[in-house]
């Protein structure tokens, strides 16, 4: 393998074609969503790829259902899930990576096993649990259910990072008089920021996009999160498919996610490049 500059023209062209195919396959659906979201009526079904700028769909998304409320719900649920996952994940990672206790390996395997169950398998059990806790049709119920999806990988990733922290750093903090919680907060947390940002972002995306629990555990429009709200958007009549509205709503909820990824990606890379962990 040499640098691309040394490749033959044929290889270069092939490589460029491959990249083009990948980029088009990745970006085209999103482009199509944006393009469709700006069209109305029968325009939607014209075989054209040109962009128009008619914001009518965006207005009607908010007019025809409590879409602002749905976005707020999604923000609350996703933020709470990220906060709880990182808090529990960090403290669990400390115990699993730093404290020797009987059954540590078994516990790690159990945590991993939880993430292997398909959502459908636990759906009815989870439904009973949420009803029993009195959280049906409430956001805390969704937060609880989503934690099942985010906690396993949060704990695993943070445990892996925690293991890499030098032992002497922890010892030094104990000699300085820190309690275990102070060691976590003042010493490990700042050093694990890149890992926290990465896992927090993943947890946010999972919670933001989660559909099945949100559909099952909510009843009223006011408690729904965005993915469910979008799926349940109905037209003026039973026979109308409000394609434009659906696309506009999808774009609205995707753009913040893209921005979030871009912002945190820079943070993650900056954190790693600064060699935060290396003494």
């Amino acid at each position: 393998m040499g640098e691309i500059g040394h490749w033959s023209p044929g290889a270069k062209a092939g490589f460029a074609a491959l990249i083009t195919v990948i980029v088009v396959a990745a970006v085209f659906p999103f482009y199509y969503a944006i393009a469709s979201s700006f069209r109305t009526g029968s325009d939607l079904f014209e075989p054209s790829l040109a962009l128009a700028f008619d914001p009518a769909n965006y207005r009607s998304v908010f007019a025809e259902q409590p879409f602002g409320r749905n976005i707020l719900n999604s923000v609350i649920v996703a933020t709470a899930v990220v906060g709880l996952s990182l808090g529990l994940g960090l403290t669990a990672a400390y115990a699993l990576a730093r404290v020797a206790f009987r059954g540590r390996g078994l516990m790690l395997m159990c945590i991993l096993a939880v993430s292997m169950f398909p959502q459908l398998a636990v759906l009815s059990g989870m439904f009973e649990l949420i009803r029993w806790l009195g959280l049906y049709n409430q956001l805390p119920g969704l937060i609880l259910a989503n934690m099942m999806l985010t906690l396993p990988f949060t704990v695993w990733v943070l445990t892996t990072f925690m293991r890499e922290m030098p032992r002497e750093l922890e010892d030094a903090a104990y000699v300085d008089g820190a309690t275990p919680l102070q060691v976590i907060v003042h010493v490990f947390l700042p050093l694990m920021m890149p890992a926290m940002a990465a896992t927090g972002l993943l947890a946010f995306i999972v919670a933001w996009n989660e559909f099945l629990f949100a559909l099952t555990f909510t009843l009223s429009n006011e408690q729904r999160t965005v993915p469910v709200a979008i799926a349940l958007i109905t037209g003026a009549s039973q026979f109308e498919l409000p394609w434009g509205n659906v696309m506009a709503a999808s774009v609205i909820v995707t753009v913040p996610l893209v921005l979030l990824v871009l912002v945190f990606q820079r943070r993650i890379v900056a954190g790693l490049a600064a060699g935060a962990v290396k003494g």
Partner: protein
Amino acid sequence: MASITMNAVAKRFGRTTVLHGIDMDVADGEFVVFVGPSGCGKSTLLRLIAGLDEITSGTMSIGGERVNDLPPKARGIAMVFQSYALYPHMTAYRNMAFGMRLEKAAPGEIDARVRAAAEMLELTPLLDRLPRALSGGQRQRVAIGRAIVREPRVLLFDEPLSNLDASLRGQMRVEIARLHERLGNTMVYVTHDQVEAMTLADRIVVLNAGRVEQVGTPLELYHRPANRFVAGFIGAPPMNFLDIEMRQGEAGLLDGRRLRLAAPAGAALIGVRPEDLIPAEDGVLKGRIALVEELGETHLIHVDLGPATVIAKAQGASQVVRGEILSLAPAPARCHFFDAEGARLGAGAPLPATSA
């Protein structure tokens, strides 16, 4: 008062016994150095004093108070680590202030103590730097600063100089000696470098395989090693050992050559330091020179005696070359004799007088 008293202190990790019942006293204000080969338990013993590991059995007291179950911060100790263990995300100043901040000390008090420590260690211009912007020696000084800011009763050092290059190590060694003079608190220092041990210690503790081999002043260990292990461990190049047998109250080599030395009964091994092997016309240790090492002020001659190779050390440049035959004689008053188990026989030469 910050003496340290250990009574039958033992440490086991699972089924492995790392320390077998250590008894030791460290006086208030004393500088004690633990030396030994790697895996001898010296760092573990230091961590037991610090409270970073739990004692399996026995008692440990600091300043007359039993500390077996006290956490590090309640023991009045501070520690300097081999890897410095500075908090990478804090400036030198915040690294040094961290312990006092956790104690919720008054900000003025913290500032005054950090600045005083920085002044003493010549760190004042570096206080705003992060550890990654400091050189190895500077990091080590910040680590020492962090340890002394809280004015501990006992300062612990875990191989603090082993990550530094040779010239810096010599310089930091002098700084640590000066620090002990100025602060006057009890210091326990772990190293595998015997030059550090010899130069810094009031008393040296030689550890081997989880047991104390000998405790004594540097010169006691050098001139009157209690056993073969200590004799071989202290001193560089190491002491020469030759198996001997007693024939009519006189020591002789196993191949029949007579040493013409008075030896105590039961001696099975003779030890002679390289500087005590002197070239002599009629020397009994005769062999071919395998190697001559010129060190400038001294030189080392490796002589192949057949059953063993011995090293002789002498001043100045050597007058002999490799391949020649050389006869050596041990200085009679400066030989060490050991029995078959390796324990010392006889009192040996009197210690040289020092001004201290």
